[in-house]
């Protein structure tokens, strides 16, 4: 579903992303780990077509993003780090609008159905977003993805700032989407959550993808050790 070939992004002399080779298949949850500035968000922005690659290419559902900016967006859903919605509109209205501009017209019960599926409590359906917590907003974001029937889900630090309970709920939602065959790419700092939800894990540093694992092949403590080693934190740990 998501494939990058040799994907590179340079800003002048600075290389934000260097020859990234990545592949996320249907039903995969791929977690990209790495410190700030490692190139995680750049990868996501390239996949979204917000920025253009310097060289190499990104594919969504076998379509080259650069050449088909609108078509590729039809298959994907995106939840930014701090998902913001229109504060003066309710959850249902936001969902209606965003799926509407994506080209889908849904009726009220369908809209409510998606929100319910995303785990939003029914009392909040018709409340304005301005009173929502971050976790609740993210549920609306998932509902948008569900309504769109997205094949690809791009997540940028979705769990930062969530309390453990909300974070846990979010993990369950991702599993549910995985069951529907969605390919998920998630950039995160959160090793623990990554180990818990991911099928694949990659560690990035300075624009390079340094390590890749199948999540079930590695324990949490091994993951932590490898991560710190990759980050050159050895001296600190030992």
């Amino acid at each position, binding site marked *: 579903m998501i494939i990058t070939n040799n994907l590179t992004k340079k800003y002048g002399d600075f290389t934000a992303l260097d020859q990234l080779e990545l592949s996320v298949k249907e039903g995969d949850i791929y977690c990209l780990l790495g410190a700030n500035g490692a190139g995680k968000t750049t990868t996501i922005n390239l996949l979204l077509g917000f920025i253009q690659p310097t060289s190499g290419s990104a594919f969504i559902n076998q379509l080259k993003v650069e050449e088909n900016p609108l078509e590729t967006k039809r298959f994907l859903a995106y939840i930014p780090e701090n998902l*913001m919605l229109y504060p003066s509109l309710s959850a249902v209205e936001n969902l209606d609008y965003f799926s509407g*501009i994506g080209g889908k017209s849904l009726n009220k019960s369908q809209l409510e159905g998606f929100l319910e599926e995303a785990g939003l409590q029914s009392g909040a359906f018709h409340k304005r977003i301005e009173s929502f917590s971050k976790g609740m907003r993210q549920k609306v*974001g998932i509902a948008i993805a569900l309504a769109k029937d997205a094949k690809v889900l791009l997540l940028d630090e979705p769990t930062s700032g969530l309390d453990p309970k909300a974070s846990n709920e979010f993990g369950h939602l991702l599993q549910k989407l995985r069951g529907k065959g969605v390919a998920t790419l998630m950039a995160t700092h959160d090793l623990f959550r990554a180990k818990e939800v991911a099928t694949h894990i990659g560690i990035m540093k300075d624009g390079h993808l340094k390590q890749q694992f199948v999540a079930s092949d590695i324990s949490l403590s091994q993951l932590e050790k490898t991560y710190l080693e990759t980050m050159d934190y050895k001296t600190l740990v030992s």
Partner: protein
Amino acid sequence: MIRKTIKKEIKELFRDGRVRISIFIVLLLLGVAVWISSRQYQNTNQDYAAARLSEREVWDNQGEKNPHSAAHYGTYAFKPKYPLSLVDQGVDKYAGTSIFLEAHKRNEAQFSAATDQTGLSRFGDLTPDFILLFIMPLFIVLLGYNSFTKERELGTHSLLKSAGARGWKIVLGKWIALFLPVLAITTSLLLLAGIVLSNLPDYGVFQWSSLVAMGLVYLLYYAVFTNLVLWVSHWAKRSGISLVVSLSLWIVACLAAPKAASNIAEARHPYPTRQEFAANVLKDKEAGLDGHNPWNKEAKLLEEQVLAEHGVDSLHQLPFNFNAYRMQKGEEHEAEVYFKQYNYLKEQYQKQSGTYRSLALLSPFLPARFLSMGIAHTDYATHWDFSDAAENYRIATQKFLNDNTAQNTKYGERGYKASADFWKQLPAFDYDPPCLDKVLENNSSNLMILGMWTVLSFILLFISTKKI
């Protein structure tokens, strides 16, 4: 999808307290303005009707009198009030509304209300045209300045982009949502005006077609502002900047450019001062025949010429009164002088209008203003048309009076008095302003400029927002 955007934008707008308040204020102002104007206009109209009637009555009942005495006594030409002057009172306040018609002299329209006002009058009036031309664009600025910047600031921008919507569809949705309240307010105002007008008895001939044309002009004008405001909002990074830039556009277009245009027009093509004008008229008059003075050179010349024409050798033998004939010839000479001097004035005015038009390239306000006044028959062009019509009537009146003396008296006869029922034979002054087609034709360049503004601003908006 466009429909969804419109729905969402409108919902957002109306859930915003400031928007509700602005709409309320605009509606309140419009209401007050219409109320004040319609009251004022009804009063003026009554005054006019009364003055007109009594003026004619005085003329008709002069009794036995020498026609030239009556010519000096004079009549008045009243500029009628037109229905749409309720919406746009144009330059009526500054141009005067009645012209005194007397022998030997072309007068300016008098009683312009502006002459005896303090500096405060320059702050403007609370009239519908003031609100339509100044406040509505400001309203568009206030409603639309954060249309795009808001999305950036809220963070919904990236989600919107990832939804894969085409840029122009989002823009069109926003455009319609911004335009709808404006459309609603304008239409309801004009409808209200139309209903009020078609129910006023003394309001002349009211035509819905003119009202519709006026409405369309305003809607084009608002479309330009909507385009510009959305474009600025898309271009600016932050709401504050967007507001400042849009507001500057408003200031330049609606406040600064018209004023600059007036000063530049006056500087490039100045009117003569009143004194200079009067001196020129006097000089030209003196160079020709003076109807009251039988001894000047021109009078002698005329005398010889007329005698030769009729093959007689004494003025007494002429079949008409030569004194009155000379009076009429003098009148014609004076009319020519005025024609020449006023034509010069008119040329200056037309050149000034040209300056206004070239500055209209900087401000959509100017063509809209001209068109609106033109359609309402309250522009300066109509005033010229009226004043020319009044002058023609004056010339005809003088001829009517002089001919009467010439036919009914002998040369040298003094103290002739026309009979009491003679005055009624003079047809009343009747003025019809140019019809709508003619007005639009005369203002075709303004229409073109406004159209150009609309098209170019649309292109600008949709090209620059291809990628939202």
